[in-house]
């Protein structure tokens, strides 16, 4: 053997031993070992102190409580022994349903210990009750938190999705661990409902998508079959003032009321069009005229009488005037610059002809009344006609295009900009969505996105930031892009981005999906308690047909479903669904309610409109409700079995339970619930009993809690409430009937 061979042999041997040494060192020094050791030490210390606290508490306590405390201490000491005896090793959770393995608990060793909440990471316990609903053994960690579950290395586990070292970028895993609030977007993977009770930011974000109508241009999961959000543009030429339209197309926020910000202020986005384009588009839009000639409003309306009517009907429930009022309809203070007096008059007479999908009821105005209301608006809020926006006069003169050419260019703009996504207009029904589909949004690779002016090495360059900035300022990222400029606040844009990121495109086994079984019920205005959700589902499990016949016609005419749920569908502006109305209220009360509707709950801002119905219609409604809108779980005959003694005991109960905190009785009490002064004339005994037993089952949005009353207690309270009657009612009713005539109401 030559010397050279020995050198080779020794060299290779050295390398081998060295690499084995390095391997050993590397394995020996894995960070998770240190983490697990520290976690264990901290947990044992915390368990000791908790056990000590329990022991000293148990010493002081007696009887049943002492036993309970000792039992808890015993459980803790078992946990203690278990933790102490557990060897230092890689922990792993196998998720067969999701085909995943998570080793996060190797370092996050104490995550299931609620006593460790608040410790620094990775030694903290999981906050909240989330692990009680999603057991670690079933869901693991990365289903919600993302990141690479297999890795036990901080970096490889993708605690950050994209790593930037100077100008070098590395992406160990498609999606990194979700940051604090973005975590809520993960809830949306399985919770395919618009209301996710434990993810308020996601719920808000999904609501904003609905409100802004993003689905007009984009394909978005959960928003496949939505109605267009904006009013029809048919016959626009006969409706609006051309100068106003120029302003509106130039910058909608200029016209929108100054109160509120973000989407509340204006839902119409700004398209940043050139002046010539705006002129052409306006030409095209104005070309759709009403073929039916509109009636000329008679002159000599009485604005004062109109104002009275305006207040009587409670128009401000939906319309804002003087910075006060609702947002359901358009604000009316600047209405005179937008539409002509003639159109406003015709709208009031023939509301549903102009917009068949409006939320506004078709009132039965006489010509005189309509002109009164219009003149009231024109006198109260009449302002000088608008001047064209700056530079438009010149642009108009410089525009050397024939009408024909303008129309063609306007029509092209209309479809290019995707106007038809939000506004229905005959002839544009076939037009598809102009934006890019946003399905599987979270999977988008930041490399393929256009970052425009933004230097993506200066920010965290994931798709969330891209869409957030694009929503706030679309021109920064795509100067030539189609995306218009929405009036979103920063918070709104962030919430929309969060909601969009919830579509990860991951395959979720069907049994984990939470789908909206109650899709016929739109989202209530505030979170529902558990009982409420179940109540809603119980009702919608039945298939509801559309309201039939004459009833259907009236529901459509008065647009009851803008505020109430009728036949399983409608809005939650009122907390009062009408599907059990017949079981709920007394016939006599209902018939007269329509004469002069009032808010039962003094705290509400949205009030029932005075619909000024024809006297036959309340009668019809009453008969229909009494015959059809019934719930079989409500006893129609309970009232006759209640006794005077029960009523007396009920009175005591009423005081004892503190009902007066929310309800007014005998002129005293709170403003939260319905005033109960005359409840004996209003509600049926059966309903009262059923509602007391389980409020949210019958009214999902009711604030009244379930007191857990016994059957007897509920009977007694019902008996007492039924004695609360209006003593002078009989006389009043007869007076009322004499005084009532035509549309004068009560």
């Amino acid at each position: 053997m030559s010397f050279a061979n020995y050198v080779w042999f020794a060299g290779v041997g050295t390398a081998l031993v060295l690499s084995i040494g390095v391997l050993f060192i590397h394995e020996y020094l894995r960070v998770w070992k240190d983490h697990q050791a520290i976690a264990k030490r901290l947990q044992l210390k915390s368990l000791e102190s908790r056990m000590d606290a329990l022991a000293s508490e148990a010493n002081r306590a007696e009887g049943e409580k002492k036993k309970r405390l000792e039992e808890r201490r015993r459980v803790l000491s078992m946990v203690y022994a278990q933790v102490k005896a557990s060897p230092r090793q890689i922990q792993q959770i196998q998720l067969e349903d999701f085909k995943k393995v998570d080793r996060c608990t190797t370092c996050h060793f104490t995550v299931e210990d609620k006593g460790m909440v608040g410790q620094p990471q990775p030694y903290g316990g999981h906050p909240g009750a989330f692990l009680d609903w999603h057991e670690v053994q079933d869901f693991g960690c990365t289903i919600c938190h993302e990141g690479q579950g297999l890795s036990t290395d901080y970096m490889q586990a993708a605690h950050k999705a994209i790593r930037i070292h100077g100008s070098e970028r590395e992406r160990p895993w498609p999606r990194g661990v979700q940051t604090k609030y973005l975590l809520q977007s993960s809830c949306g993977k399985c919770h395919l409902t618009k209301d996710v009770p434990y993810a308020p930011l996601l719920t808000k974000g999904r609501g904003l998508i609905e409100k802004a109508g993003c689905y007009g241009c984009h394909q978005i999961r959960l928003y496949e079959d939505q109605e267009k959000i904006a009013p029809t543009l048919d016959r626009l030429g006969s409706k609006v003032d051309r100068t106003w339209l120029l302003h509106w197309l130039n910058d909608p926020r200029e016209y929108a009321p100054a109160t509120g910000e973000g989407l509340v202020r204006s839902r119409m986005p700004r398209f940043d069009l050139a002046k010539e384009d705006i002129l052409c588009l306006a030409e095209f839009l104005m070309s759709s005229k009403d073929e039916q000639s509109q009636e000329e409003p008679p002159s000599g309306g009485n604005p004062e009488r109109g104002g009275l009517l305006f207040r009587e009907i409670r128009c401000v429930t939906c319309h804002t005037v003087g910075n006060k009022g609702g947002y359901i309809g358009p604000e009316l203070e600047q209405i005179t610059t937008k539409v002509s007096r003639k159109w406003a008059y015709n709208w009031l007479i023939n509301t549903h002809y102009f917009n068949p999908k409006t939320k506004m009821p078709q009132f039965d105005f006489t010509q005189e009344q309509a002109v009164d209301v219009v003149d009231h608006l024109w006198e109260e809020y009449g302002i000088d006609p608008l001047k064209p926006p700056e530079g438009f006069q010149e642009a108009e003169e410089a525009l050397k295009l024939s009408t024909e050419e303008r129309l063609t260019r306007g029509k092209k703009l209309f479809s290019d900009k995707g106007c038809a996504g939000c506004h229905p207009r005959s002839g544009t029904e076939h037009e598809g969505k102009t934006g890019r589909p946003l399905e599987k949004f979270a999977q988008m690779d930041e490399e393929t996105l256009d970052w425009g002016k933004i230097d993506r090495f200066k920010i965290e360059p994931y798709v969330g930031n891209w869409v957030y900035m694009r929503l706030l300022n679309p021109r920064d990222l795509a100067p030539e892009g189609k995306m218009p400029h929405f009036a979103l606040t920063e918070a709104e844009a962030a919430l929309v981005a969060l909601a969009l990121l919830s579509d990860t495109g991951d395959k979720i086994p069907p049994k984990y999906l939470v789908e909206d079984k109650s899709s016929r019920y739109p989202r209530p205005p505030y979170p529902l308690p558990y009982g409420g959700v179940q109540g809603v589902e119980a009702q919608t499990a039945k298939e509801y047909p559309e309201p039939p016949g004459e009833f259907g016609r009236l529901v459509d005419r008065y647009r009851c479903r803008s505020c109430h749920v009728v036949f399983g569908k409608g809005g939650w502006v009122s907390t009062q669904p009408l599907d059990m109305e017949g079981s709920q209220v007394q016939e006599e009360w209902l018939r007269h309610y329509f004469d002069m509707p009032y808010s039962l709950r003094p705290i509400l801002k949205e009030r029932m409109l005075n619909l000024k119905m024809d006297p036959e219609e309340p009668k019809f409604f009453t008969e229909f409700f009494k015959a059809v809108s019934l719930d079989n779980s409500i006893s129609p005959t309970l009232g006759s079995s209640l006794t005077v003694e029960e009523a007396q005991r009920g009175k005591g109960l009423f005081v004892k339970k503190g009902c007066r905190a929310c309800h007014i009785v005998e002129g005293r009490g709170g403003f939260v619930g319905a005033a109960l002064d005359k409840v004996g004339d209003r509600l049926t005994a059966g309903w009262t009993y059923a509602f007391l037993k389980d409020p949210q089952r019958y009214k999902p949005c009711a604030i009244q809690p379930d007191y857990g009353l016994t059957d007897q207690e509920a009977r007694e309270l019902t008996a007492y409430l039924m004695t609360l009657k209006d003593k002078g009612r009989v006389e009043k009713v007869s007076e009322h009937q004499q005084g009532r005539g035509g549309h004068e109401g009560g």
Partner: protein
Amino acid sequence: MKEDRMSIIPMVVFLSVTFVISVGAFLWGMKVFSPVEIKRAALPEEHPDPLRSALEKAANGLSNVELVGRQYYEAYCMVCHGERGAGDGFNAFNLNPRPADLAVVKKKGDEHLFSVISNGSASVGGTSLCPPWGKTLGEEHTRSIVAYLHTLGS
């Protein structure tokens, strides 16, 4: 044979040097890499994250649990206890006694708050005007409200 005897020496030398280096490297590595912060120095640069800061602002710095609690507080409690829990809500002035200032109640601890919300203030010997919410809200909602209360007032 002479050749063979001579050849063992370099091998022994090489192997012992290797062994010493390995042991040295091992001990050195132990010393350098032992703290948990070990790789913290190698963490990538932090860059601004506009979406994250906007969400932070939208959430008002509350945790996810507290946000859940806020929803329910605003829907069920605020009308009497007021926006900041000072007992000055819209309905407070119809009540006698007035709703409690939650900053005071809070001092009695989480378990006390939980049982007052679940079983009503009458259950702890107070007025019956604050009803038992436990059956309607459920345990988790109630716990989230308790968590949110800690963010109110001082």
